[in-house]
């Protein structure tokens, strides 16, 4: 159907507006990070930088522990992502294909864990981790991140599994493939976009997690970016350039992850699977 000029104008105008709304804060943060302090604090901000400096990034990398926080965040987020995917996939498959009593009730119940406010369990978890010696350990953060990301990840993964034609599995069963082989050799490649989505969800959840990281981690050397960064900024006096440089540096790993796994989103789900 061919669009009229008015329809096309409305469509592209709307898209442009949405793109601007999404991109504007990022533009402001990124361009702000290279402006001189005097330009940053102007009451009316400049859209195009009138000055250029890398002093905020120099300060961020040389005078603060930001690189340490960055490495800690990468470690915690990577392990949290890996464990979430490894646990979500078989759990989702079990809910999707296996028959056991209370399957549907349990499937709905697990989402309650996702809806539970973290702050409610913060103090009991602190006591629990203190007893097993996990306070001030990244392991505690991985455990918490996985526990909170897993319920929704199982739901996401099961939805992707549900899109795969049953005939594919039946063909594998006829050929004598066991369940593990069906899951690993046949279903996993077909739901690669689903795995990528869960991985991105788990990574970003972990990357931005603040509450537990602020309480379970005690020493500066083990802090993750959100907590360490909040400390760098200060309370009564804000170094705006440092804040913007840190925010810019903090989104780089997330952008890199999207660049890495983004191709999975454009590939077809089951292209060529059924001949």
């Amino acid at each position: 159907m061919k669009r009229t000029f008015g329809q096309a104008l409305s469509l592209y105008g709307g898209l442009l507006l949405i793109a601007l709304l999404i991109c504007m804060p990022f533009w402001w943060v990124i361009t702000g990070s290279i402006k001189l302090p005097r330009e940053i604090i102007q009451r009316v901000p400049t859209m195009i930088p009138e000055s250029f400096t890398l002093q905020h990034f120099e300060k961020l990398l040389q005078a603060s522990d930001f690189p340490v926080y960055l490495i800690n965040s990468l470690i915690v987020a990577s392990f949290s992502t890996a464990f979430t995917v490894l646990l979500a996939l078989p759990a989702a498959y079990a809910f999707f294909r296996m028959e056991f009593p209370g399957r549907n009730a349990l499937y709905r119940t697990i989402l309650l864990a996702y809806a539970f406010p973290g702050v409610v369990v913060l103090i009991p978890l602190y006591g629990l981790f203190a007893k097993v010696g996990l306070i001030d350990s990244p392991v505690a953060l991985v455990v918490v991140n996985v526990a909170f990301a897993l319920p929704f990840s199982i739901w996401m993964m099961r939805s992707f599994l549900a899109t795969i034609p049953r005939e594919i599995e039946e063909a594998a069963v006829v050929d004598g493939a066991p369940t593990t082989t069906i899951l690993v050799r046949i279903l996993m490649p077909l739901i690669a976009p689903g795995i990528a989505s869960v991985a991105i969800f788990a990574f970003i959840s972990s990357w931005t997690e603040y509450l537990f990281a602020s309480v379970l981690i005690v020493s500066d050397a083990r802090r993750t970016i959100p907590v360490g960064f909040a400390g760098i900024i200060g309370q009564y006096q804000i170094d705006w350039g440092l804040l913007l440089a840190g925010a810019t540096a903090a989104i780089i790993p997330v952008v890199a992850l999207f660049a890495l796994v983004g191709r999975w989103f454009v590939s077809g789900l089951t292209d060529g699977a059924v001949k």
Partner: protein
Amino acid sequence: MMKLTRLLTLAGFAATLLTGTAYAAPVDLTLWHMEQPPHRVQRMKELLDEFNAAHPDIQVKQEPQSWGEVYAKAPAAFAAGNGPDLLFTIPDFTTVLKGIDAVVPVDDLVKDLDAKHGFIEATLAPYKYDDHVWAVPAYNMAISLWYRNSVLKAAGVEVPKTWSEWQAAAEKLSTDGKYGIGLPANKQLYTDQTVYSVMVNSGAADIYKDDGSIDFDKPATVNAYDFYSKLAKLSPADNGSWTWGEAEACFASNTCGMILQFGVINTYDTQAEGDAADLGVAPVPHADDQSESATISYSNAIMLTTKDEAKQAAAKVFLAWLLEPANYGRFLTMEPGLFLPVTDDGAKADSFWNDKTVTKYKSQVETMISNSHAGKLFGFTTGKVFPSIGAISAQNVIAETLQHIVVDGQSAADAVKGGQARMSEIAKK
């Protein structure tokens, strides 16, 4: 043979004792503070390294925390048995930890330190109640009125001393896209602080009666809110979301003619690249029917939070060392132009005045110190402290009351009446 065996046994025992004495493990102290910005952590490290080197039998390590989380984190840590031995505090935080029996009184230490260095009474008062002193004051922060001399001169206004002069000055400075004053109206701690710094200047410093009942709804409080809301109208429209940083940026960019702030020196110097001689600071103006200016001040202190006697003794050695004038100035200048001395000899220490920022802004720092002597803090003005102050502070009831005026359009009298009801409700729980 028997003799030889006995001799060897004795020699071995003596050697063990001597070895034990010579290599006795040092007392390890963990210090939690909330001075997280990197330059403050670095300055603390330098001081601790110096102390540890001079005191091999005591080793102090720092673990910086955040004010945002420490209210939940510290009680959890003490409950789990892994809390710190020394902990930075502000008055209402002390009441929280005292409530869970995590704080050790420091009466004798404070008495000795007071005799030696002379504590400024306003910094000690918020920690003296229930027959004990609960923390050793470490540094003070007090709100002052900040302005630019050139801006006031160009507008033909004098530095305001009274409310009527203040309002007139703010109105005169409100021209050409500039705002006469930048005051916050956010439901947040900064607004609590600025509103209270106006309240103390109308004679409404006490929010409790002696029996612990709330004493908020009174004419002096209503006058303060009424006046504040008039000034808030001369502030930028986004002041409903301001914290300290936004107000400071408004002043540093020369958009706000005056602001109430603990300190602006660092931002003014490094981000606004301002001229030191042009930066003005004055006491917060008082109501026309009052004669003296007062302000809000936060006396930051250090609590002793270990029950271990050896650690307590070691901690006292460390605190005494920290307040020695030769060391104390370097502690304060971890944030020059913000952290103010709590002792008389600290206020004269070369280690403080030799800092290059303090030297550059000497007259301003002198005025800040002078202002801090008239500092008060809500809930800690009567010599009696009631536990509900922690919740009243945490729920920002003072700022919330202002929002009922500037956002909901209530009269000051109605809003203060509502504030009284809210505080009373909290105090009953």
